[in-house]
């Protein structure tokens, strides 16, 4: 499984002022630090701990995630679209590995 591979689902266009639903998914084991390996040694914690969504540079939605978030974190939220522009999505894990994705949205004529 490719680690840190993001998938985003949101409409390609919206009416001005329309609220759109955004679904995000990223592959990541979200190792909680609770599991033990075959020798009984604890497997160290390694999770995505932060998710940020911005639109044209302004924050829309953020999440600080803890070990209780399931593997392959699924995050669904909403955004009000006033202009056309670009959504940027950022995931940061415990080792400060950053994954980003972008989606453009147009305004319906």
């Amino acid at each position: 499984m490719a680690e840190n591979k993001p998938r985003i689902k949101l409409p390609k266009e919206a009416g001005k002022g329309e609220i759109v639903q955004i679904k995000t998914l990223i592959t990541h084991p979200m190792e909680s630090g609770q599991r033990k390996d075959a020798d009984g040694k604890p497997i160290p914690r390694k999770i995505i701990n932060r998710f940020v969504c911005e639109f044209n540079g302004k924050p829309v939605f953020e999440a600080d995630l803890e070990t209780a978030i399931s593997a392959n974190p699924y995050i669904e939220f909403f955004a009000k679209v006033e202009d056309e522009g670009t959504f940027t999505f950022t995931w940061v894990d415990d080792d400060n590995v950053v994954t980003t994705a972008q989606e453009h949205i147009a305004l319906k004529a």
Partner: protein
Amino acid sequence: MQTFTRRQSLALAAALAAGAALPRAALADTKAEAAELIKRFADGKEPMKSTVTLDLPEIAENGNTVPLSVKVASPMTAQSYVTDLLIVADGNPNAKTAALKFSPLSGKAEASLRIRLAQTQTVTALAKMNDGSVYMDQKVVKVTIGGCGG
């Protein structure tokens, strides 16, 4: 077939009681942690049980992935909007589950996640508004197969 003496029966009962006490002690620790997180988030305000709707299944078949949805009835305008939302689970190894931040650009103060629940427990969602008021909702989730990886 050996019959137990009264002394042996009492010793056996004491051992069973001592064994049974251990898991309950672990659960109690996380309850205190959850209460502390809630208290700190509410920052002196008494959370009102309204406005927030926390959706979770009554019974979670698989504690490794439990669908959670939370929504806050708020106009999400610059005058009145949800700033923060805290999710706390009082029976997990770590009580803190997620801390969400919204803005008027969110349009709706609603989000869905998938969480791990180690055992049957109470999940609490608290929402803070831009005027500092705090609202909450709670759900008890029965967990048939725990999901924290042990």
